[in-house]
C-alpha cells in the first residue's frame, strides 16, 4: 500500500507541525485577543530571512540565529502594530496583509537578500546534526527516514509552544487578552492598556511565525520570496478555524486534520487526467472546509457555548 509510505507521512507531519506553530500565533491573535492578523506570512518571512542571511552572509551558527530571527519578527510586529492597531478590526486585517505583501515584494525586488534568487546554503549545520541524529535513530531501526530529526524537533517545539501558551492563557495576562477580545472598550474602562496588550499579542504571534519560518527554511532548504505569499496565511486560518476558536488543542488537531486531508488526497486514484485530479483535490478540500464550517461552526475543539455567548 503506497499510501502507508512512512517517508510521505513524516513529510506531512513536518508540514503540519510548521503550520501548527504558525497558526498558534493566529490563535493567540484571533482566538484570544480578537485581532484579525492577516500578515502572519510576513512575520514568518522576516524570521526565515533573518536566519538565512545571518548564516550565509555573516557566518553565524544556525541555532544562534533563532533568537535574532525571533527578535526581528517581534520588532516588525511592534512596528506594524503601533500604527495599525488603532484601526478598526477589518481595516487592521487589510493593513497587515498589505504589510506582509510589502515584505515579500521588498525581498523580491531589493538586492540585499538575493532578490528572486533567494538564499540557499544555510542548512549545512542542520544537515550535519540531522545525519548525526539519524545515526542514533538507526540504532532503533529508524535510520532510513531522514526527515525524522526535523519532525521530532518541530513537534517538540510545537508542544512546548502549546504548553507555554496554555499556561499564559490562565494567567492574569491571558485574562486581560480575553477581556480585550470580548470587549476592548470595557477592558480599557477598567484600566487596561488595550494597545499595549494587543501589541504584546501581535509580537508573540510574530515570534511564533518566525519559529515556523525557521523550520520552514530547514524543510525546503531554499528561501525565496514566492514562498511567503498570502496563501500561507489563509491556510493558517483554515487550520485555526477548523480546529476551533480559542483552543490551542484545536490548532494541533486542526493542522493534523487539514494536512492529512490535503496531502492524503494525493493518493486519490481516479480514471482522470493529472490536471483533473489536481483540480478535484482542491475542490474536495474546499468542500470539506465549507461543510465543516456549517456543520461544526465552533470548530473541532471549540466551545459552542462560548461562541453563542459572543453574539
Amino acid at each position, binding site marked *: 500500500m503506497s499510501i502507508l509510505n512512512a517517508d510521505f507521512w513524516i513529510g506531512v507531519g513536518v508540514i503540519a507541525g510548521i503550520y501548527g506553530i504558525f497558526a498558534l500565533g493566529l490563535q493567540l491573535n484571533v482566538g484570544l485577543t480578537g485581532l484579525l492578523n492577516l500578515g502572519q506570512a510576513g512575520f514568518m518571512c522576516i524570521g526565515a530571512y533573518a536566519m538565512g542571511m545571518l548564516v550565509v552572509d555573516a557566518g553565524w551558527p544556525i541555532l544562534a540565529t533563532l533568537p535574532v530571527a525571533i527578535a526581528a519578527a517581534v520588532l516588525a510586529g511592534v512596528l506594524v502594530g503601533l500604527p495599525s492597531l488603532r484601526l478598526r478590526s477589518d481595516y487592521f486585517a487589510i493593513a497587515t496583509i498589505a504589510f506582509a*505583501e510589502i515584505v515579500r515584494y521588498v525581498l523580491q525586488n531589493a538586492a540585499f537578500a538575493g532578490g528572486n534568487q533567494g538564499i540557499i546554503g544555510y542548512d549545512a549545520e542542520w544537515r550535519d546534526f540531522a545525519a548525526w541524529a539519524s545515526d542514533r535513530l538507526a540504532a532503533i531501526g529508524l535510520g532510513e527516514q531522514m526527515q525524522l530529526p526535523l519532525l521530532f524537533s518541530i513537534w517538540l517545539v510545537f508542544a512546548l509552544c502549546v504548553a507555554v501558551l496554555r499556561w499564559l492563557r490562565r494567567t492574569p495576562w491571558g485574562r486581560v487578552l480575553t477581556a480585550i477580545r470580548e470587549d476592548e472598550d470595557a477592558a480599557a474602562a477598567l484600566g487596561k492598556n488595550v494597545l499595549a496588550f494587543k501589541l504584546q499579542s501581535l509580537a508573540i504571534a510574530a515570534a511564533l511565525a518566525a519559529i515556523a519560518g525557521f523550520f520552514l527554511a530547514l524543510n525546503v532548504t531554499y528561501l525565496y520570496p514566492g514562498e511567503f505569499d498570502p496563501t500561507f496565511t489563509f491556510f493558517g*486560518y483554515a487550520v485555526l478555524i477548523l480546529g476551533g476558536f480559542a483552543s490551542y488543542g484545536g490548532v494541533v488537531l486542526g493542522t493534523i486534520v487539514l494536512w492529512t486531508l490535503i496531502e492524503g488526497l494525493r493518493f486519490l486514484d481516479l480514471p482522470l487526467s493529472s490536471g483533473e485530479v489536481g483540480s478535484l483535490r482542491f475542490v474536495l*478540500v474546499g468542500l*470539506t472546509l*465549507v461543510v465543516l464550517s*456549517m456543520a461544526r461552526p465552533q470548530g473541532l475543539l471549540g466551545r459552542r457555548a462560548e*461562541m453563542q455567548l459572543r453574539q
Partner: protein
Amino acid sequence: MIEEASAPPSPRWHSRLPPAAWLALVIIAALALLAGVKGPVEAGQATINGLVDAGYVALGAVGLTLIFGILRIINFAHGDFLTLGAYVALMIAASGLPIWLAAALAILVTAAVAAALDKLVWEPMRRMQTSTLQLLLAAIGIALVLRYTIQFFAGSQVRSFGQDILSAVNLGPWHLGTLQLVALLAGIALIVAVGLGLRFTAVGKQMRALSDNMALAEVTGIDTRGAIRLTWIVAGALAAIAGILYAAAVGTINPNFGSLILLSLFTAAVLGGIGNAYGALLGGIVIGLAQEWSTLFLNARWKPAVGFAILILTLLVLPRGIFGRVPART
C-alpha cells in the same frame, strides 16, 4: 458604539470639504507637478494607464464592498466569481453564440450561483449566527471549490476571448486600448448606477438599512432575506461583468486570475471606505494612479508594493478610508 469613536479624531478639513473633492484636488495638483517634472506626454500616459487599472479593479471591488459593507462577510471567494463569469462566457461563446449573448448569459449564471450559495451556505450560517471567522473559512472553502471546479472543466491553461486587444484610441500624444476604454467607461457607468440604486431605490435603501443594523432592519419589517439575496445577486452579476470585461480587455486569463487580483480589489475597497460603491471607484483610482505614476520614478517591479504602501499610508491619515464615515453619535 464607543468603538467607533476610539479612532483618532478626524482632521478639521474633513468636515468642510467632501473627501472626493479633496482627492480630486490632490490628484490634479499631483498631475500638474508630474507634468512639470516629467513632461506632459509621459505624465499623461501614466495617468491614462492608471485610470485603466482603476477601471479593472473598481468594478470588481464594488461587489466586494457591498457584501462586506452589508453582510460583514470578508468574501475571499469574490475573485473567483470574476473567474466564473469570464469562464462561463468563454464556454458559451465557444459553442458559437455571439459574444454579447454569451456575456449576458454568463452574468445570469454567475448571479444565480451567487444566489444559490446564499441559499445553501450563507443563509443557514446566518440562521446559526455563525461568527465572522467561520464565515471567512466558508468563503475560503467556496473560493477553492469555485476555482478548481472551473479548472476541472476548463483546464489550467490560458484562455482568451480572442477580441481585438491591439486596437488603440489615440488622443494626441496619448493612447489607450479601445477595449480598455470600453472597460473603463462601462465600469464607471455601472458603479454610478449601483451608487444611485443604493441611494434612491427602495431596495437600495433596504440594503443600506441592513448595513447599518441588521437586527433593527428586521424589526422594522424589511424583507431582510430578500434584500440579502438581492445583494448577492447584484454582487455576483457585477463580478461576472468585471471578470468578462477584464478577460476581454486584458486578453489572457487562467483559472487563477480572479484570486490573483482579489487583493487589489480588497485594497481598492478598503482604501475607498468599506461599503461605499463610489469608494471602490476612488480607491481604485488612487491605487491605479499611484502605481502607474510610480513607474515614472521607480522600476515597474515596485508597482505592487507601491499599491500596498499607499493603502497603509492612507489608512494612517484616514482610518476609515476616503469615504469612511466617522459616525455621529447621540
